[in-house]
């Protein structure tokens, strides 16, 4: 009941999906349509888990007066205000909800990811210092691709954009293809393991 039924659900739905791909017919198309329709109904309920988890963590930090608990008030206030604004005024263009998205979410997200430009550079320096021939190959390929994507590369010599194109279309393609073949086989094996109930860690829990 606790494990067997979920495993049976995965096996039966999984086999039906395999049949859907190999036996194209109206029944298999209807099955896919039915599954997608039900998944779209079930999906939104999962967001409650995320919200509850976030509120629970920050509420406990405030309650216990844990270090930096004041910032948890910021998180919960932002959560409540943004949600309330979305439900009161709607989410169309021109509403306060979109104003918050444009002036809070967008700059915070873009700046956070742009910070990685600095850290990726220092991490690269530490990781790729040309200690071996292979590391040097990586470093040279990265530098050529970076230069080939900006106008300064063209200004240095017109060879750089050409070499960049060659790197991307030949050795890079070979590398991506070799890795993709391995990933594909791995995905197939993992999917089979899940379907057959060999891999069941997604069920969580002990019993």
């Amino acid at each position, binding site marked *: 009941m606790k*494990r067997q039924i*979920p495993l049976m659900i*995965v096996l039966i*739905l*999984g*086999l039906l999906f395999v049949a859907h791909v*190999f036996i194209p017919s109206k029944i298999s198309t209807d099955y896919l349509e039915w*599954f997608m329709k039900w*998944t779209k*109904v*079930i999906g*939104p*309920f*999962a*967001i*409650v*888990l995320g919200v509850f988890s976030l509120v629970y963590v920050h509420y406990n930090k405030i309650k216990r007066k844990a270090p930096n608990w004041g*910032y*948890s008030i*910021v*998180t919960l206030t932002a*959560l409540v*205000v*943004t*949600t309330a604004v*979305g439900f009161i005024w709607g989410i169309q263009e021109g509403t306060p*909800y979109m104003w918050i998205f444009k002036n*809070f*979410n967008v*700059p*915070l*997200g873009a*700046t*956070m*990811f*742009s910070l990685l*430009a600095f850290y990726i550079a220092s991490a*690269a320096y530490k990781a790729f210092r040309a200690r071996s021939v292979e*590391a040097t*190959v990586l470093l*040279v*390929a990265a530098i050529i*691709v970076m230069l080939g994507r900006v106008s300064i590369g063209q200004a240095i010599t017109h060879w750089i954009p050409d070499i960049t194109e*060659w790197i991307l279309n*030949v*050795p*890079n393609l*070979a*590398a991506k*293809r*070799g890795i993709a*073949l391995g990933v*594909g*086989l791995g*995905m197939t094996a993992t*999917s089979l393991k899940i379907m057959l109930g060999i891999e069941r860690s*997604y*069920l*969580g*829990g002990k019993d």
Partner: protein
Amino acid sequence: MTETIGIWIAAFLTLCMFSFLYKDNPFYKFAEHLFVGVSMGYYIPYTYYNAFIPYAYNPLFLKKEYILIIPFIIGFLYWFRFSSKFSWVSRYPIAFGMGMVGMGVPMSMHATVLVQMRSMMLPLDNINIILIFVGTISILLYFFFSKAHEGVYGKFTSVGIWFMMVGFGASFGYTVMARISLLIGRIQFLLGDWLGLIK
């Protein structure tokens, strides 16, 4: 007026985030926690209006498709995750979603194995196609651990490492450039939209 306030808030938050380049500080912590709250707050109404209303509420309550009561109930079962005694009930909606892996078997085999192999099996009539062929085979053999990587075989598999290093270098270069373009965007915002120093 609202636009000006918005620009000043966005500029302040951008600077708060950039302050982390100096060191972790209260301004960065404030911006970081605000980001988490606002992001989650953004997705709640978004999911409600774009997923729950059109795919769950309207079909069930307006179009009277009563069969959808079943997925409604399955969806509710997610919430048993909060109960220590009945958390196993939440495995049912998870299992329903996991059924999709059945599609993964033939689709991943087709898209990432068969299509890639078909693209590789071309007449070896120019140097680039030969290089791609040799590179792919040497990478695959590099990950084949049933035979010791020594002698001629070992030398051939080490060619695979070279191809992978070039591939990783190219991916790294692309990632750096994507981050740099985001950084340029933020600098343009600060100097252009906020301070008006550039047009």
